[in-house]
């Protein structure tokens, strides 16, 4: 579709990546689909649980990063956008982690239903 555009010529050097963006996007979409497929298959494989959890986390992280850095342009934008988003991301993950840890502590287990 982008091939129908006839304004690309007007853009200067820093727009050199535009030509290939279509390719990049499609390739990444394929990659994301493949990773999702792997994830779905992985959960049914007979590996130790921690291996699977770790690999699921890593795979999702990879997907996550691809989307934000390519689809969402962070890779081509000013680093400040990345910093801004990561402030929220880091604090949110920290809070989620802390909450899970707090609730897993022995003192916080819910009462056994008798």
């Amino acid at each position, binding site marked *: 579709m982008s091939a129908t555009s006839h304004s690309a010529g007007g853009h200067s050097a820093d727009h050199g990546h535009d030509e290939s963006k279509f390719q990049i996007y499609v390739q990444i979409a394929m990659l994301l689909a493949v990773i999702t497929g792997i994830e779905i298959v992985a959960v049914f494989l007979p590996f130790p649980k921690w291996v699977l959890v770790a690999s699921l986390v890593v795979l999702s992280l990879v997907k996550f990063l691809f989307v934000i850095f390519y689809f969402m342009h962070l890779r081509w934008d000013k680093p400040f956008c990345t910093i801004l988003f990561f402030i929220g991301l880091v*604090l949110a993950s*920290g809070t989620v982690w802390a909450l899970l840890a*707090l609730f897993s502590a*022995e*003192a916080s287990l819910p009462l056994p239903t008798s």
Partner: protein
Amino acid sequence: MDTTAKTAYLTKEDAVPAQPKLLAHPTAKTGLMSWLTTVDHKRIGFLYGVFALFFFLVGGVEALLIRAQLMYPNGTVLSAQMYNTMFTMHGTTMIFLAVMPLSAAFFNYIMPLQIGARDVAFPRLNAFSLWTFVAGAIVLNIGWIGPIFGVDGHNAPDAGWYGYSPLTSRQFTPGHSVDYWVMGLQLLGVASIAASLNFIVTIINMRAPGMTMMRLPVFTWMTLVTAFLIVLSFPAITIALVELMMDRNFGTVFFEVSGGGMPILWQHLFWVFGHPEVYILILPAMGIISEILPTFSRKPLFGYPIVVFSGACIGFLGFAVWSHHMFTTGMGTVATAAFALATMAIAVPTGVKIFNWIGTMWGGRLMMRTPMMFALGFVWMFMIGGFSGVMHSAAPADTQQSDSYFVIAHFHYVLIGGSIFALLAGIHYWFPLMFGRKVSEFWGKLSFWIIFVGFNVTFFPMHFLGLNGMPRRTFTYDPNLGWNTANFIASIGAFVLGIGIAVYFAVMIYTYYKGEKVGRDPWDGRTLEWSIPNPPPEYNFRVIPTVHDRDAFWYEKNNREQIAAERAVAEKAEEAHGGIHMPFNSIWPFFASFGLLIVGIGSTAFEAKWDVPGIHWKLGLSLLGGLVTLVGIYFWSLEGNEGYHLHLDKDGKPVKGHGDDHGPAKH
């Protein structure tokens, strides 16, 4: 350098598209319509201030009723239920409807002036924040009507300002009070988040040339940190409130023990928000103090980078200490220890600020004007409040103090001695800039002393009350527990404090109409807001300044020729660009907020059953409100962020004929 003009819609040169009547831009400059449609950050800031001060008085009257009830043991001024309503509304009002919007008033009014901008980044979003805040305030307070008309089940919120579950569930609070609280806070959250996003973008993107981040005035820095805290902590309470709302209305079991829910989760989610919230209340105050002390010491701030860094550090650490409000919930040793240590750590960056303020004064020449008095009062009182905070952080000792009057003493020292003192100082400090008049030194200082004495007489004895075992949130106490004298003194103090505040307000109102007129820059200020005429013109800066130093205006005053030459060049360039770009007024933000008000009232004040056959009020009004909001947003986006150009004459007055030029900006 015109920063607001960038986002014009048109692809064809300056031709005007046919504009339907509905999207005609409101042009009223005076009267009610001008206030409802304004997008001027100064007017919006002013409105924030007026609403906040009103609610400060409301919260204050609630506090006085509390103190009247507790003046003698077994007091009978209020019924138990009324007392509970009173402290809940007092806390909620003071925090969400007084201190936060008063800070927002300064953010709005002062921050764009300090960075040399003509407005905030999204003027209409700013108006939307203001009116949504008003909608939230109305919903929160609408329950007062119930008791007045004797309607059962419709009273003001009474579950405490942190509304611990499961007391807030349908089972234990069957009436509508908690619904008002939930919806009110929800709307206030929307307003605060929207406003803060706006401030973040403004500070990062709308700075005048040369205004690097490390040249930002400290108040602006603290605005930025506060905005980040709001944006990152309000989601926690928003979600918690959604969960509570679902529990109350849709039968979910988030906090229902019968379904396996854990009420403790509410506490965690609330304080994940709640602790950053208290820094949301104090950081703007610290920013104000960091402006006033240098000005009246006639010296730059001592250790600027460290002050800025410690502010950010406080903000960040503030997310890691929430459970210090839960030391008595049996978290286990490790968690308790971790949160106790993290809490203590916050004393370090806070201490840094205190030290640097003293450093600022050291070797300076202290001009004891009224704002300076309040600022010094702040430093002393905040220090005391901070120390009792550190005492709380020693978890085992805190199990004796928590939920006692020791906590009440701690947080009133940081909230009144801290936030309120600084905000009152700020009003004094910027009053000449806003209104071109100055408060009389005598009356200003008199009100300071009454407030200062009244405050200490009220709250210092509460430390002893707390250590002597008086629990908070108690509408009555027996005379045999040794609390009578201290309570009596505290109540007397509260009335003295009330008189002080009454004097303060009387003086302000008098000054607004009759006060001594002053010219530009009456305090020999150091930051850019003092470089413009007072009261500030609609467009703020005739020419966007170029910044060369941290104390930008101080530098200008010492390098007049250089600046004058720069200005002349810049003014020409700007005129060649088409003049000063101003955004159009708009009614749509108000309209959208009004829709939210309908949602707020509709979803809370009505039962979920079909009370009149065929009319489901709760659902109907909520949908209607949602629709109104949607329509508001739709037109808001269709009308586009166009504006007009101003051309000024020699005195800075807009030239007639050009002022209403509807030509869209194009650069």
